[in-house]
């Protein structure tokens, strides 16, 4: 253990009694070390006495307000994401419906006689399907 560690452990109160006795015995023979010890003790006292500076009044209120703000912001963000997603899904859905409708009208198999049924890709009712429906 070097001098610094001995002094620090003494300040902390964790220096073993035998080391403490050795330390006290060596102080007389080493005036420089004794002076260093006095200075370190003085610094430690000054540091302990240093006033802890409190935060400005209403600190807790400001913290809780910021947490509330962050929460609102987070909720807003979720809402904005949902809106963004819905807008894109809706546009894609309408576009797909248009493409399928155009395909049914122009290039698809002729399934029905009316424009609406063709647009929606509905098959024309056949005798067979009418019988199936009646049985059901």
């Amino acid at each position, binding site marked *: 253990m070097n001098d610094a560690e001995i002094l*620090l452990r003494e300040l*902390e109160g964790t220096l073993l009694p035998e080391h403490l006795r050795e330390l006290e015995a060596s102080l007389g023979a080493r005036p420089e070390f004794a002076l260093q010890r006095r200075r*370190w003790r003085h*610094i430690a006292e000054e540091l302990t*006495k*240093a006033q802890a500076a409190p*935060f400005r009044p209403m*600190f807790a209120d400001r913290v*809780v307000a910021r947490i509330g703000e962050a929460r609102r912001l987070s909720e807003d963000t979720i809402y904005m994401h949902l809106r963004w997603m819905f807008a894109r899904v809706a546009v894609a859905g309408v576009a797909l419906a248009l493409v399928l409708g155009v395909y049914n009208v122009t290039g698809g198999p002729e399934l029905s006689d009316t424009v609406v049924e063709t647009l929606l890709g509905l098959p024309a009712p056949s005798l067979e399907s009418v019988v199936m429906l009646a049985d059901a």
Partner: protein
Amino acid sequence: MSAVEAPPDEELLERARGGDDRAFRVLVDRYQGVVAATVTGMLGLGDDAEDVGQETFIRFHRSLDRFRGESSVATYLTRIAINLSLTALKRRRRWTERFKAPARAAERVSDGFDPERDRERQRQTDWVRAAIAALSPQHRAVVVLRMIEGYSTRETAEILSVPQGTVMSRLARAMGRLESQLKETDR
């Protein structure tokens, strides 16, 4: 006069986890002194310290679900505060701090009983703050935790996530620097 017994941390934490802001507010009130000592020790007085103090509690609030009491609330908060302070120190321009620190130190509130004692205490506090401000962030963190806040070497090592030997060597070096400054002041 009978005082209403304050609820224990565990109860407040449980309520805060459930979204009770009033419970969390009590925790902030209870531990703001601990956080203030850390951040003002690390950053000096000023808006930076207040911001880092608030951010410390906001981070704590975000991590409530993860906090299971392996360490005490004070130690947990100190760890967050130290890490945020070290980040803030990296960001801060040193010359700005040198201009601000003496001006803000003069804003300290007197307790109004004994002006002479107040001045002496203020002088000591200013010397300590100036001396600490001259240390590197790593050395400052050790001095604040170990010497000002009174954490043991083991706890300081735990908070800073470094071995105890590192705490001792950093502290020895920091004390050496403070000793040099003390000699300068005494001249």
